[in-house]
C-alpha cells in the first residue's frame, strides 16, 4: 500500500471520506491502491498527473467514454489506463435494487469498482478501466438494457427531477419529457456533431430541483398560467399554528404568515385580510416561496406547461452565464413535438455558426439574441428582455430602409 499521510487527514473530521472508501477497495483492486498513491503525490506537488482525451471508445459511438491516463505509468501501473464510462441514467434516477446490483456486478468485473452516483450531467459515472475492458463492459451493459451517455461535443444525457412521481408541484411529466427527448436525440447523443456540449434539463416547477437554470444549456422549468390554488382553511391552520411550515422542514414550529410569507413575497402580490390570504396573481412571478412555506394551503395552478430557457454554462470561452427565457410558456404534452422541433432548430443554428468549444449561450452573446430568434423562428417577447429598458429585439427589415429612403419617420413625439 502506498503511504498517504496527506490523504489520511481527509479521514478525520465529521464528514464521510472518499479516502476511506478507496482504502477499503485497495486490497482487492491494485489500480485503486495506485490511485491513492498518485492522488497523494498530486496533493504534495499541487499538480495533476492525469492526461485526458484521445481516441478510446466503443465501436460506433463517439460519446460516453472519456479516455484517461496517468502521466506516471511506471510508478503507478494500475493507472496506465483509467478511463471513465458514463452510463445514461434512468429518468428521475429511479432504480430497482436488482438494476443497481447488475450495474455494479458489471463494474466489479470490468473496472475499478469506483463509481460516482451521479455526475453533474446526471449520468452514472464508472471511474477507471482499461481500454480492452471497454467493449466487454459495454456489451454486458447493453444486454441488461443500459446504454452509455453523452460526452464530448454531443448532446449530453438529458436529466430531470423526479417530477410527478413524487412531487405534487410538478407542472408537467418531467420524466416522460426527459425520456422522449433522450430517445429523439440518440444520434446526436452518441455521435458528436455539435461545436461543444449541449445539456437538457427538465424541472417540474420553479423550485428547479435539478438547478437547470444554471447547469444546462436548455432548461424546461414547469410553470402555471392561472391562479395559485388556495385552501383558506389550511391558511387559517397555518396562522393558528396547527400546521407546521414547510411540511415540518422549517426550524420553527409556528409560521408567522405575515412576516414569513406575505412580507417576503418578492413582488408583494399577496396580503392578509383577517385570516384570509389574497393573491394578485397577475403580479406573481412564480418564485414558489409561499407555496414552499405553506404546502398544504397553496398549490400551483392547473393551466400548466413550462418556460424554456437557454444559454447557461460554466466559464469556458466567456464567463459563467445563467439561462435566458426564450419561450415564456410551452404546453408540455406527449409527444413533445414542439420542444423536439425547437431543440433541433437551435442545435442546427448553433452547429452552423458555433466555433469549436463555443456553447450556445456564448454564440448568442457573440451573434446577438436578435439573430438567434430570427434564425430559429421564435417571436421576440417581453419576457426575453434580459435587461429592462434595453430592447435588443428591434428587427430592421429591407422595407424599413426603403420607407426611410422615401422620407418616412419611425419615431415621433406626437
Amino acid at each position, binding site marked *: 500500500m502506498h503511504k498517504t499521510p496527506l490523504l489520511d487527514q481527509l479521514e478525520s473530521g465529521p464528514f464521510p471520506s472518499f479516502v476511506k472508501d478507496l482504502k477499503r477497495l485497495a486490497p482487492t483492486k491494485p489500480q485503486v491502491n495506485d490511485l491513492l498513491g498518485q492522488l497523494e503525490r498530486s496533493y504534495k506537488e499541487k499538480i495533476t498527473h492525469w492526461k485526458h482525451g*484521445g*481516441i478510446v471508445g466503443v*465501436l460506433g459511438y*463517439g460519446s460516453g467514454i472519456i479516455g484517461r491516463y496517468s502521466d506516471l505509468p511506471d510508478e503507478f501501473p494500475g493507472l496506465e489506463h483509467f478511463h471513465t464510462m458514463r452510463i445514461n441514467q434512468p429518468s428521475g434516477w429511479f432504480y430497482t435494487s436488482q438494476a443497481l446490483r447488475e450495474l455494479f456486478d458489471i463494474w466489479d468485473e470490468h473496472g475499478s469498482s469506483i463509481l460516482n452516483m451521479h455526475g453533474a450531467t446526471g449520468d452514472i459515472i464508472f471511474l477507471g478501466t482499461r*481500454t480492452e475492458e471497454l467493449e466487454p463492459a459495454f456489451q454486458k451493459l447493453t444486454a441488461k438494457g443500459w446504454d452509455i451517455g453523452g460526452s*464530448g461535443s454531443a448532446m449530453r444525457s438529458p436529466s430531470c427531477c423526479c417530477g410527478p412521481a413524487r412531487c405534487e408541484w410538478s407542472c408537467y411529466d418531467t420524466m416522460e419529457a426527459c425520456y422522449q427527448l433522450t430517445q429523439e436525440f440518440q444520434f446526436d447523443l452518441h*455521435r*458528436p456533431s455539435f461545436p461543444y456540449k449541449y445539456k437538457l434539463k427538465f424541472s417540474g416547477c420553479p423550485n428547479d430541483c435539478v438547478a437547470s437554470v444554471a447547469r444546462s444549456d436548455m432548461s424546461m422549468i414547469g410553470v402555471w398560467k392561472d391562479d395559485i390554488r388556495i385552501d383558506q382553511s389550511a391558511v387559517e391552520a397555518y396562522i393558528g399554528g396547527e400546521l407546521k411550515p414547510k411540511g415540518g422542514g422549517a426550524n420553527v414550529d409556528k409560521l408567522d404568515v405575515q412576516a414569513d410569507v406575505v412580507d417576503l413575497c418578492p413582488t408583494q402580490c399577496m396580503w392578509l385580510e383577517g385570516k384570509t390570504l389574497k393573491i394578485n396573481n397577475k403580479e406573481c412571478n412564480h418564485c414558489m416561496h409561499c407555496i414552499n412555506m405553506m404546502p398544504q394551503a397553496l398549490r400551483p395552478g392547473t393551466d400548466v406547461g413550462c418556460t424554456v430557457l437557454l444559454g447557461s454554462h460554466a466559464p469556458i470561452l466567456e464567463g459563467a452565464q445563467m439561462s435566458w427565457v426564450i419561450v415564456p410558456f410551452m404546453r408540455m404534452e406527449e409527444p413533445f413535438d414542439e420542444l423536439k422541433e425547437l431543440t433541433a432548430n437551435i442545435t442546427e443554428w448553433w452547429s452552423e455558426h458555433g466555433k469549436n468549444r463555443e456553447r450556445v449561450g456564448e454564440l448568442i452573446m457573440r451573434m446577438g439574441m436578435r439573430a438567434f430568434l430570427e434564425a430559429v423562428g421564435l417571436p421576440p417577447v417581453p419576457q426575453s428582455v434580459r435587461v429592462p429598458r434595453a430592447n435588443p429585439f428591434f428587427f430592421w427589415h429591407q422595407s424599413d430602409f426603403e420607407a426611410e429612403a422615401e422620407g418616412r419617420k419611425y419615431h415621433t413625439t406626437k
Partner: protein
Amino acid sequence: MALSKEELVEYIYKLVEGAQGKKQLKAKDIEKLVLKEHPDQPKNDVKFAIKDLIDGGRCVYTYFGGSFIEIPHVEGAAKH
C-alpha cells in the same frame, strides 16, 4: 450533382484521410466541405455516411478539447 451513398462515403473518407495530421475535422466541417462541392447533397446523407465510416471502423471519433473524426491511429496519450 449529389453523390450516391457509396460515393459519398468514399468522398468523406478521402477528406478525412487528406486532413490527417494537418487539421482535425468535426462532423460539421465535413458537412460544409461536402456541400461546398455538392450543394444539392442532402445533409442527412452526410450524417449517415459518417455513421457508416465509424460503424465500419474506418474512421473513429477522437476527443482533443472537442470531438473530431479521424482515421484510427496509435493512441498518443497512452504512450509512456
